[in-house]
């Protein structure tokens, strides 16, 4: 991965920038190697190998700021590149809020990149035959063709990929940080046709940082998701309870993180402006950023500026505890800096009107369906958007109607419309079933009073 020569080059870039007129500089050197194998209907369809190497250079020149990158890393080329970059920054407007993070706030414990245990050295010992064999193991095509009943398998596409990422960040204040991780990813998509000639597709995937954690059974899950959609029925427009499966529930937290970012707030593009310290979410709702959990996807010891991450509450018992504030917006808005953005959000279990104790039993999708009794289970979103200024949203959905806590039939071509803050204030339950391999640990959710159009 990143070599000592490349680290020397990154350090040289900082020195060269400062000696050429920059008051401060940060560099981020990235290397990524990915091998992927795609299997179509049981046969190898595509093999690809990629190896990327690039350097990002952040320049602070006389109160001005610019960002530059190149993948041409010969020393003389990079030196010329930096000189031209400094010339450009000098042309920009002065904004004295631009500066490096205070050295007190930068991470001191990301020295090798391996501290969080996200890199599996097994990556280096895998040869192309083993990778191809792993990809072929994903395919269930032949077996499924022999047991088609009530459907015909049109196509199966599987992909196996393994990636090694290495990132080295340093700045002219002496910060150095490194983050390395491997990712072993599997994906399967099944397209089937029912006896009436209607097509349905289902997909499933898994990512993990360890080779031994690879799940080769995802094809069956993808097929199950496709078959379960056969025979959708129309459902009338109306106000229903909504359960959102943990595979897609993060879609509803995403607008919150955008709104909690100081960049949005400073530009008056946030429906959470002025919410810090306020209870704007339901009592009992807690969302943590657990950035420093070893071995977990999404963990990191420093953000893109080099600021040390922390395990910290973002929303605690319904009260907003933290905006995401980088150095620039801290200066601009006169508020303390935190981190640039969320790393590994974890929504804690929640049941409206009930105090959940630490270690209380697990709350599954089935538990939440029983709790909600009647409504619509959302298993996929189809387009839609959330207005960052007002929080008004409208999303296409697909999923299942449920009654008395049991799924009854699939539904599709439906829409949900409302306001994201009103939605979260109608939170009925949050489970404990976030997918272990996901970066965002958002479990199955249930909401009341959701307007469905059909």
């Amino acid at each position: 991965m990143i070599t000592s020569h490349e680290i020397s080059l990154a350090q040289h870039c900082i020195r060269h920038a400062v000696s050429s007129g920059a008051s401060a500089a940060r560099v981020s050197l990235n290397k990524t190697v990915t091998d992927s194998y795609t299997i179509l209907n049981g046969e190898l369809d595509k093999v690809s190998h990629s190896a990327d190497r690039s350097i990002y250079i952040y320049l602070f020149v006389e109160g001005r700021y610019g960002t530059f990158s190149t993948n041409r890393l010969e020393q003389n080329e990079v030196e010329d590149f930096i000189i031209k970059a400094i010339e450009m920054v000098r042309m920009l407007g002065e904004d004295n809020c631009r500066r490096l993070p205070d050295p007190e706030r930068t991470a001191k414990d990301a020295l090798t990149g391996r501290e969080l245990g996200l890199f599996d050295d097994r990556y280096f010992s895998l040869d192309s035959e083993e990778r191809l064999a792993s990809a072929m193991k994903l395919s269930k095509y032949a077996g499924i063709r022999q047991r088609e009943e009530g459907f015909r398998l049109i196509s199966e596409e599987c992909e196996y990929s393994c990636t090694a990422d290495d990132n080295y960040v340093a700045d002219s204040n002496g910060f150095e940080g490194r983050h390395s991780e491997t990712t072993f990813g599997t994906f399967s998509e099944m397209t089937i046709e029912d006896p009436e000639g209607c097509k349905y597709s289902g997909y499933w995937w898994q990512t993990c940082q360890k080779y031994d954690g690879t799940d080769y059974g995802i094809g069956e899950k993808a097929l199950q998701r496709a078959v379960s959609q056969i025979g959708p029925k129309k459902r009338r427009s109306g106000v229903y309870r909504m359960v959102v499966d943990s595979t897609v529930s993060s879609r509803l937290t995403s607008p919150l993180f955008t709104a909690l970012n100081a960049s949005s707030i400073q530009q008056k593009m946030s429906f959470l402006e002025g919410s810090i310290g306020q209870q704007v979410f339901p009592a009992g709702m807690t969302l943590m950023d657990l950035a420093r959990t070893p071995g977990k996807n999404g963990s990191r010891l420093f953000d893109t500026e080099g600021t040390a991450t922390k395990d910290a509450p973002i929303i605690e018992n319904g009260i907003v505890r933290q905006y995401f504030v980088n150095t620039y917006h801290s200066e601009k808005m006169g508020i303390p800096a935190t981190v640039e953005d969320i790393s590994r959000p974890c929504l804690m279990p929640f049941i409206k009107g009930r105090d959940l104790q630490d270690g209380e039993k697990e709350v599954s999708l089935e538990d939440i369906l029983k709790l909600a009794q009647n409504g619509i289970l959302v298993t996929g979103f189809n387009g839609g958007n959330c207005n960052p200024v007002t929080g008004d949203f409208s999303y296409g959905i697909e999923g299942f109607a449920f009654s008395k806590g049991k799924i009854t039939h699939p539904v599709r071509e439906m829409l949900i419309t409302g306001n994201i803050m009103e939605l979260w204030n109608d939170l009925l339950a949050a489970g404990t079933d976030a997918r272990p391999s996901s970066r965002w640990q958002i479990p199955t959710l249930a909401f009341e009073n959701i307007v469905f159009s059909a």
Partner: protein
Amino acid sequence: MYTKNYYTDLFKVTETQLQELTGTALAQGGDYCDLYFEHTTFFNLLLKDSIVSSGGFHTDFGVGIRVLKGEKTGYAYSENTEMKDMLGAAKAASAIATGSATACRQYHPVENRSHDLYPMKENWREKGANAFLPFLTDLEKAILAKDNRIVKVIIRLSDSVSDVLMYNSLGELTFDTRPMGSVSVTTVFQQDGKTENKSVSRSFRIGAEFIGPALLNEIAEEAVKGIDQRFEAIRPKGGQMSVVMGAGASGILLHEAMGHAFEADFNRKGQSIFSDKLGQRVCPAGVNVVDDGTVAYNRGSGNYDDEGVPAEKTYMVKDGILCSYLHDRISASWYGVNPTGNGRRENFRYNPIPRMRATYMESGNADPEGMIASVRNGIYVDEFSNGQVKIGEGDFTFFVKSGFLIENGRLTAPVKDINIIGNGPQALADILAVGNDLKIDNGTWTCGKEQSVPVSCGMPTVLISSLTVGGE
């Protein structure tokens, strides 16, 4: 327009080396291989809080090598053009085949291209940031002068120039230089304690002559257009209703409802809802739908696609009949037709796949006002952001940023922030009228099927009898 030597010098490759690379790539028996050399420079400026307080430039350089064996693909790339690294990538890509070497055809460069769709009068690379700073500050002033409710203006100017050299085992050498200039503006307004925002963008394959007073006035005008309605807008009562799609950006309907489903890779694999519909009626008679790579200066255009195939105007639907899918070389070979110039990629790191370019419906005969007048209860929509489609099921959505209710044939209350959902074949069959006012939308449309590529879309005013509209 540059000559062949400009590109071979830039990438430091010779005719002999190109042939050696294709020979190595086919050493294990592939049927076809191609090389895609790319050098792209990006430049951007950002104005916020009345200061152009950040900007930068970025350089990307490399070569992608693809080997085809039947419909199977081997792909690898190198971020430099040192022969040993390119040969390594060629060997990696060759792994898709296992057999004996395939012969390559003789080298023959295509010196006279059939199109010159985006000649640059002023090359972006020869301009410094200074050349554009007055435009940004003047644009901000012009916008602020138009409405005293504005509290923030954010302006982004970006440009790129890509030099591309393509060579393949058929011996064909082609080259192109592709500029792109984009300006986008977000304006935030406050009135009586309420906040609303409005975004506008323009993007073309054009040189730096793009930046000037005409563009400034056009964007400033649109940055404040319709903001009164936005403060008054309501959410309609949701459900199925007639929808009049205004001319221009409504082309997103075509992109989502049919364009993706007509991309031939989905059809070759049997995954698209339109897989078995070639030659069949999919729209009412008289409807023509085009995917066009030849619109001068258009964001989706290319003199060649990313497989070296010359641009063409492809009719997907003619007089209501599905007459062609959108092909890259793989699907064209599989279907036994000529490629349609739709083999596109994000950059040299990706293999090309069938992608749209500028997708639009040709004008019909209907009077747009008459269409609105014919609707008793429905909705008129004219401004959009994102969309999505499920290829197999054909269910598509697009997000409406603004429009109006139609009540008894008249536009009444403004509406905003609603999603619309429908099913592709049904929506196309439900087209009741096509207006005589085709308009191409020149915003910063980007399609995200596996890779991001610039596209555009357009449509005349169209009346659809029934779609499901989100609402309260």
